[in-house]
């Protein structure tokens, strides 16, 4: 039998742990990563020469970050590591890479997708003003560049990242004017039973909240009707609480409404998708161990469903074991079962988080017609609704064809969640019924000049 050619996409917690398991039995996987350094988003490392300590960068999680980075440095000589490399296409047998400015093809026999997540973006008035960031982008700024997004910052949205980021920013010395949480206190109480499945994680969340309040940060739960205004950049933010409007001056806003899995490569690899109620997203089907519907393609970490960094490490190991098993190698079944149990516990906690931090249910109904949903193509909510009403559109790809929504640079990575909500709400359908955008390569923009150089080289050789 030919030597298996294993490619792992993503050097976050899932990808690194998967590589570790494979390297331990003498396999040499290729680990492709878009970033300069390993760690993913959660344990992102600053560029070489930056001097913030792990404790400063990762807080409570610094030991886990250190451990992952340490594992990775030990792995380096045992794997084929390709940093700064974008996987922009997959045809079911090979990947197309943009490897530090060069096009390369990379055939695989086994593909492990550890592609992570992106913020769920739900537009609100003023969301396109300079000074408005996603929570994820604000966190990248802090971790990678050691800078903050403003001098008087408001964090707004829903999800655990809201409090974590506010805490990280405040600890780094940033001035947080307010934390505005669109989920309510009572919802969080109802979720307590599930949240207690991870008492330590729950305790950390409560600690962040208490710390913020102790340090005089204004924290408001159960807000709605968020609106940012300003002339050339953010000047004020307003919201409603119990029907009363309040306004605050600020110069930067970070917003986010939970995370969405990055599933484009799984789509191009031919995986079957199904609608996942917990994630409120179409996700590639997978078994407990991480096998997708396509033989030889595995999913681990947030890219296959949001479960956080701890789960990603476990899932990376679990999927790698499944891969070894599929290669006919003997694995310790107890290890697999131990990982399965641990992952199930986290999944219970995750259910609690979704109940505690639901995406704003009334968003699609309340979003104003003039709000831009697709910023690449400048498509408003009103245009989407008009096509639904005028042409009777009830399916996502049709909406894309008729309006251009999701056709721009982001290819729907940013706008498709909001567009789907608008379509479902206007057409009176569920998110399941309206389907999902079909992926097309490149999953991120690809420079023409690279293709030209490659084509010329082929001609002359």
């Amino acid at each position, binding site marked *: 039998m030919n030597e298996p050619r294993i490619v792992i996409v993503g050097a976050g917690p899932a990808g690194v742990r998967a590589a570790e398991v494979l390297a331990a039995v003498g396999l040499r996987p290729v680990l492709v990563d878009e970033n300069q350094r390993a760690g993913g988003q959660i344990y992102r490392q600053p560029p070489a020469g930056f001097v913030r300590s792990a404790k400063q960068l990762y807080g409570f999680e610094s030991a886990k970050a250190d451990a992952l980075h340490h594992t990775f440095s030990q792995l380096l000589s045992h794997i084929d590591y390709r940093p700064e490399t974008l996987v922009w*296409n997959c*045809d079911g047998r090979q990947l*197309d890479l943009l490897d530090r400015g060069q*096009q390369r*093809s990379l055939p695989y026999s086994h593909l492990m997708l550890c592609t992570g997540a992106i913020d769920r973006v739900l537009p609100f008035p003023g969301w396109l003003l300079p000074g408005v960031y996603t929570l994820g982008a604000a966190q990248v700024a802090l971790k990678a560049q050691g800078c903050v997004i403003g001098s008087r910052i408001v964090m707004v949205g829903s999800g655990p990242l809201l409090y974590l980021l506010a805490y990280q920013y405040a600890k780094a010395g940033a001035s947080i004017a307010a934390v505005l949480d669109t989920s309510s206190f009572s919802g969080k109480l109802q979720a307590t039973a599930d949240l207690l499945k991870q008492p330590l994680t729950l305790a950390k969340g409560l600690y962040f909240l208490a710390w913020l309040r102790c340090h005089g940060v204004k924290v408001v739960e159960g807000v709605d009707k968020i609106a940012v205004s300003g002339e050339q950049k953010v000047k004020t933010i307003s919201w409603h609480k119990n029907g009363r409007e309040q306004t605050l001056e600020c110069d930067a806003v970070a917003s986010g409404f939970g995370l969405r899995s990055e599933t484009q490569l799984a789509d191009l690899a031919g995986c079957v998708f199904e609608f996942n109620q917990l994630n409120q997203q179409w996700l590639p089907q997978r078994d407990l161990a991480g096998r997708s519907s396509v033989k030889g393609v595995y999913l681990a970490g947030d890219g296959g469903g949001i479960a956080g960094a701890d789960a990603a490490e476990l899932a990376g190991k679990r999927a790698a074991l499944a891969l070894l098993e599929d290669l006919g190698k003997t694995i310790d079944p107890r290890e697999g079962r131990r990982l399965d149990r641990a992952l199930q516990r986290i999944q219970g906690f995750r259910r609690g988080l979704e109940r505690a931090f639901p995406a704003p249910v009334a968003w699609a109904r309340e979003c104003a017609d003039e709000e831009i949903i697709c910023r690449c*193509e400048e498509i408003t909510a009103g245009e989407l609704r008009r096509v639904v009403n*005028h*042409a009777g559109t009830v*399916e996502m*790809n*049709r909406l894309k*064809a*008729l309006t251009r929504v999701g*056709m*721009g*640079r982001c*290819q729907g990575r940013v706008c498709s969640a909001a567009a789907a909500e608008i379509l479902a709400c206007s057409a009176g359908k569920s998110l399941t019924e309206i389907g999902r955008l*079909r992926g*097309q*390569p*490149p999953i991120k*923009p*690809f*420079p*023409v*000049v690279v*293709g*030209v150089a*490659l*084509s*010329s080289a*082929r*001609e002359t050789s």
Partner: protein
Amino acid sequence: MSERLTADVAIIGGGLMGCSAALALRRMNLSVVLLEQGWCGAQASGVNYGGVRRQGRPVVQLPLSQRAYAIWQRLPQLIGSDCEYAISGHLKLARNEAELASLEDYRGQADGFGLQLEILGREALRQRYPWLGENIAGGSLCPGDGHANPRLVAAAFALAARNHGADLREGTTVESAVFDGRQFTVCAAGGLEVKAKFLLNCAGAWGAKFAEQFGEQVPEYPIFPNMWVTEPMPKLVEPNVGIVGGGFYVRQVARGNFVLGGGRGTGQLAIASTRPDSAAMFASMRMACEFIPALRNALVIRSWTGVEGALPDHQPVLGPSVTTPGLFHAFGFSGGGFQLAPAVGEVLADLVAHGATATPIEAFSIGRFNAAS
């Protein structure tokens, strides 16, 4: 669930051909049921390049193409939208004197069809289009040609047909079609049965499959155009640009994106199975940059393909069946159907209503394949 419908005309296929025929028939007050396996206009009609081009067509297509050209001019009155139709010109480039001679030759052949072709030498071309690259011997401009947005056109024809009273059934896969000597019975998945005096086979790449049910063999095969689009760029290129012998074609849309095609993708007879091909894209990138060097600085944001039906002689099948009275075919347009479609719909309506059409279509007869065998 079973449902029985009766209509004057049943149409298989909700692409541009079927939808424009449905509208034309309704305008003659004939009742129409159209059956489409997916969404109207989602296959070849929706994923093609969008060229509204007469230049370069085989001369036998030009009468049909000219009839279509006249309809394109009144699209808003006909279907309530211009579908981003723009008369931007079509410029066909020649790399050398031999290719330039072939363009001059074509101008002679097309004389009398109203294309108003203008041959431009190297210097004239450079002066008029300073964005062009170096190695171009000349070109031929058809000023009246242009482009439209393919995603919108078939959908707009479908909507107009529906508003005129056509019964359009999407997500309805036809399983069988038979003729009992008097009328057609078309059965679709889900228990739908349509009886009609006339049947139009507008099934695109699936057209040969239905022709076969009436004893007509056609060597149709699927092709997968390889398309890609850049991010919006500063406005630079007005006309559609193509090259003698094909290989690549490009236009810049009002929003600034360049839409390009060249080579073939891969797939089977199912749109979900189609894939653009990276190597074909790189090859067409190189050609495109040779002729429009500014494209080197662009980023590609999406590539795609879809299923089109093609025939060995690159001519469509259009006209009456040779085996079955009341059956008319319109499929296998070989990558060149978009511009023709509005006229094809009218021709089919002529054939249904009058048994004949004023537009010469003999060259597209399905009988040409029987004769050869």
